[in-house]
């Protein structure tokens, strides 16, 4: 099922079209542009709309605060990606190399 702009607006009680359009303008949501007038929302986009709607209506955060949170959030998830890349790379090493890395990391924090 392909989800378009209006489907998203209808999915959430509190959300109206102007607000969703504003979020897209701000770059909070980046739906796929399939033509000049129609955006397609993937599951990730919808989940992100839900999160922002939740912050906005349930947690009552104002737009400026959300503007602050979203980039931080994207950093956290980006860093988690890098961390997973590193963990995969470390896990691909022989046991003795992994142990050395763990020991070195341990020294760093001690």
């Amino acid at each position, binding site marked *: 099922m392909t989800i378009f702009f209006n489907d998203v607006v209808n999915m959430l009680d509190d959300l109206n079209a102007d607000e969703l359009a504003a979020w897209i303008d701000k770059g909070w949501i980046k739906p796929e542009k399939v033509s000049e007038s129609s955006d397609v929302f993937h599951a990730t986009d919808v989940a992100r709309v839900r999160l922002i709607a939740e912050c906005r209506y349930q947690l009552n955060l104002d737009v400026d605060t959300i503007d602050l949170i979203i980039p931080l959030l994207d950093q956290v*998830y980006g860093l988690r990606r890098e961390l997973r890349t590193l963990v995969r790379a470390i896990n691909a090493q022989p046991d003795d190399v992994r142990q050395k890395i763990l020991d070195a990391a341990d020294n760093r924090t001690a």
Partner: protein
Amino acid sequence: MDNPYELLGLKPSASVEDVRKAYRKLAKKCHPDLHPGDAEAEARFKAISQAQALLSDPEKRARFDAGEIDAAGNERAPEHFYHPHADSEDGVRYARYDGSAHPDSMSDIFAELFRNQQDRAHVKMRGHDIHYSIDIPFLEAVRGTKKRATMADGKQLDITIPEGLQSGQSLRLRGKGTPGLEGGPPGDAYIDVRVSPHKFFTRRGNDIHVTVPVTISEAVLGGKIKVPTINGTVEMTVPKHANTGTVLRLKERGVKDRKSGKRGHQHVRLEVVLPEKPDEALDTFAASWAETHKDDPRHAMLGAI
């Protein structure tokens, strides 16, 4: 399922506004999307969401208060969280850093890791030194030689043993260590030399010491004898009335000093020996000689104790 009032820190008399305020306060602290990967926060968030849903619904709240439904109610906490998506492959579209080794998409910390690796790869590095040890026969060490020797790791090296090499000295073979990296020079090979002892030559400094046997007649009458030196056989004169323990010096027949170029000496200690087989004539002579010579050569020793 915990009591929804307790979960939100409320009294049963709390107003709808109290419920909303309490929920917002708690939800901000444990929203799963603000605490990715924190299962405890997620569980807590679900619990307070459920509690809030129940207490915000006057009908359900009344039924809960009346004991008609339990705290779980029929409501389910929202399951449409963002974080599984953010952590999925598709989430890369929003992630600030994409977790790849592409320089344009790395955080500064991650970039440091890869930068270090690149630096390392391009630094010219000298190869490592390798240490070996070999045993050299005594005569090769004092005379000096060139030889090809096989090291412990199977490597064959051409070695020049300088004349007069001492045990414990180390030879350096330039460039015979491991190869350098990225055009760096190779390391050196260091060879610790142990000189094997010789059957009859011993070395003290640059002097050679050797004990040679002489017959009774050579010792008594003197004469020319042939003795071995480190560079071949040499004729030497044994003086008349020599004895066991007499030390003669062969000038400059020792080891060549590496610095001054001067040779040490060879010291030849004589040792009077009887013939290998019993000799009748000698027996007869000794018996008649003993008749007239009663001196005890151990006299001084015996008197000393």
